[in-house]
């Protein structure tokens, strides 16, 4: 078998060597607790403060607006539940979101609804883009927070967050955006777009798993999820993961420095993959194709007459790592809620394969994927077996 091909960068990415190097001292001599008053503590505190400043700079934010979390899921939960739990007492009990959010947002919204919130999910187009009119209709004076992701993690469509944020603000609602897939891909500037809360994650951009951040605009009240310490202004008690914050800051800087070049490279590769697949499998559906703006690194494709599960296994056993839909606790795949919300038929939704490109993607790997994928499709549809 030829060298395995990793095509699941939207799931996670390898830690960059520069990031690992930056973190190492904090697993060694610089091990202090940033809350300690002694020299070890001071040293760790310095590092943490610097990391916070660097991440803030990457987002056009002030350092005090950056709260480090364990990752995107925690950031989303802090944003949704934290904001709603404050504002529900101010006559704002509703949460407006979309049916194509990451489960971290949807789960938090459902939890709020379970606790009494009025949950409203707006319409999305067949191309996987939020319908601004529908969104606007759901926003009322009772809305605590509205949450729309920046880039959809399954199909890569870019959502009109600037416009949506304006709509939310006009109704006095807070606006949160899950920027986990957007960070490092799209310029994020807190000064340019009036989002109040933003989630980002480290491991999608070459930092380790277990680190992320939530931007909380000055003046925005958020009830903490955790209790028991004063770290991070009490917004996120618990001893900070100093090493990971350093790694996150480094990864963020690298990603931003390379952003445009990497966008162009990935877009070219993604288009090459998409065109190769469509040329060999003309009836394949590329979800979100034709949307006003697409992220460069995600290709989600369904071929009639195939199923995700079999394709993913067959690809994996040939060394190609992709994903599909959302995995449940047991690891089994269910049809994607995103595709369902877009009105994709259950048959086509259950055939979806998400290929996501990144640092490990090359022309050669892309060509091989296109070839193997098309051969597996032919086989699944009853043509001759594929030679291994």
């Amino acid at each position: 078998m030829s060298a395995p091909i990793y095509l699941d960068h939207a799931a996670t990415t390898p830690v960059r060597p520069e990031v690992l190097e930056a973190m190492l001292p904090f697993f060694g001599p610089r091990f202090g607790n940033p809350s300690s008053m002694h020299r070890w503590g001071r040293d760790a505190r310095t590092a943490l403060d610097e990391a916070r400043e660097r991440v803030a700079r990457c987002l056009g934010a002030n350092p005090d607006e950056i709260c480090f979390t364990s990752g995107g899921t925690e950031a989303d939960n802090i944003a949704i539940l934290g904001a709603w739990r404050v504002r529900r007492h101010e006559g704002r009990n509703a949460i407006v979101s979309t049916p194509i959010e990451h489960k971290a947002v949807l789960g938090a919204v459902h939890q709020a609804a379970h606790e009494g919130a009025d949950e409203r999910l707006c319409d999305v187009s067949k191309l996987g883009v939020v319908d601004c009119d529908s969104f606007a209709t759901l926003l009322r004076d009772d809305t605590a927070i509205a949450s729309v992701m920046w880039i959809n993690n399954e199909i890569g469509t870019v959502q009109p967050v600037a416009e949506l944020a304006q709509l939310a603000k006009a109704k006095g609602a807070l606006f949160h955006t899950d920027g986990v897939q957007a960070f490092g891909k799209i310029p994020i500037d807190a000064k340019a777009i009036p989002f109040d809360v933003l989630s980002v994650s480290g491991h999608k951009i070459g930092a380790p798993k277990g680190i992320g951040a939530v931007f909380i605009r000055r003046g925005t009240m958020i009830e903490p999820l955790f209790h028991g310490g004063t770290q991070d202004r009490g917004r996120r008690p618990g001893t900070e993961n100093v090493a990971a914050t350093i790694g996150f800051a480094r990864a963020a800087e690298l990603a931003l420095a390379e952003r445009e070049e990497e966008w162009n490279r990935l877009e070219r590769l993604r288009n090459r993959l998409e065109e190769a697949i469509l040329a060999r499998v003309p009836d394949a559906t590329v979800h979100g194709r034709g949307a006003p703006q697409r992220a460069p690194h995600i290709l989600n494709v369904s071929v009639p007459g195939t199923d995700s599960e079999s394709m993913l296994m067959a690809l994996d056993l040939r060394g190609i790592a992709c994903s599909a839909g959302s995995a449940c606790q047991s690891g089994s795949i269910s049809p994607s809620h995103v595709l369902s919300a877009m009105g994709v038929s259950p048959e086509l939704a259950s055939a979806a394969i998400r290929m996501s490109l990144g640092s490990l993607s090359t022309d050669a790997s892309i060509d091989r994927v296109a070839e193997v994928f098309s051969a597996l499709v032919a086989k699944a549809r009853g043509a001759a077996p594929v030679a291994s």
Partner: protein
Amino acid sequence: MKERVLVAMSGGVDSSVAAAMLVEQGYDVVGATMKLFCHEGDLPDRPCCSLDSVNDARRVCQSLGVPHYVLNLESAFGRDVVDDFVQEYASGRTPIPCVRCNTFTKFRDLLVKADAIDATWIATGHYARTIDGELRRGLDRTKDQSYFLWGIDRSVLRRMLLPVGAQTKLETRTVAHRLGLEVIAEKVESQDICFVPDGDHTKIIRQRLGDDAPALSRGPFVLSNGSTVGTHDGFARFTIGQRRGLPGGFREPMFVVDIRPRDRAVVIGPREELLGRGVVARAINWLVDAPGVGSRLSIQIRHRAAPARAEIVRVDGDEIELALDEPVAAITPGQSLVMYDGDRVLGGGLIERGTRASLPILAA
């Protein structure tokens, strides 16, 4: 390396050892755990399909160094197995969901997955054997599971590997220890139906059909002479031959001898009314060339029953009628009729009814 084999792994000792033995034999093993149903919230450990079972299967595959996948067969299983299970009870019958799971889920739907990954073989931890394209009983007669396998397509037999079928359960556990599979080596054996929480099958009937389902509603206990002798809380709680939960006060032990959904009646009677001299079965599936009328063979009308000698007296499409040499007790509609020649499984079908006459009742 030998050909690829897809092993259906429940996380239990039998399928784990099956996978381990195939690895030892040099096969290119791919493990798969089927997710067949989803209990809202997590129940305490279920014998199969629960998260813990998936995790156990995954751990075993990790220690064997083979890939493991979780396959979502929930909707097909719900349709082919659970729906049928509920319908059968609602019709006054006593189904065996494991038979349909083997027929449709494991050896049909999973086979499609095997095809997708170019697996020549499909393997399970069943105590049965396949020899030259024929199905045989497991060598350990106390563990033999061939009774549950009659429904699979005959052509699949040549693709099946049943590695533990040639050994005893004790040997299986010994192999588990020898291979260091301590996670699962002493796991308690599953006896329950995997999708039935805490062994109460009426819960799932209620879930599907509602609280006022006739099968779960009050009805009469009657004698075969028609007299009513009490009331019960739903005929789905009863099966032919059952003694528990019947009205008392009779001179001899009483058994359920019939279930009549049309008037919700549970008919009870003494042991002699339980005896059948013949059996009619439908949906017959042959695993050998079909024997004709007059063929003599042995049959089993329930798991672990002693084989009984019988003769085929009528074949009508996929329906069959057999005459028994000696009467057999509690021939239960919905259970399986499996036909054997010694260790060879000839075929099977679903029991439609027992007959009390020893000769076929010819259609007028």
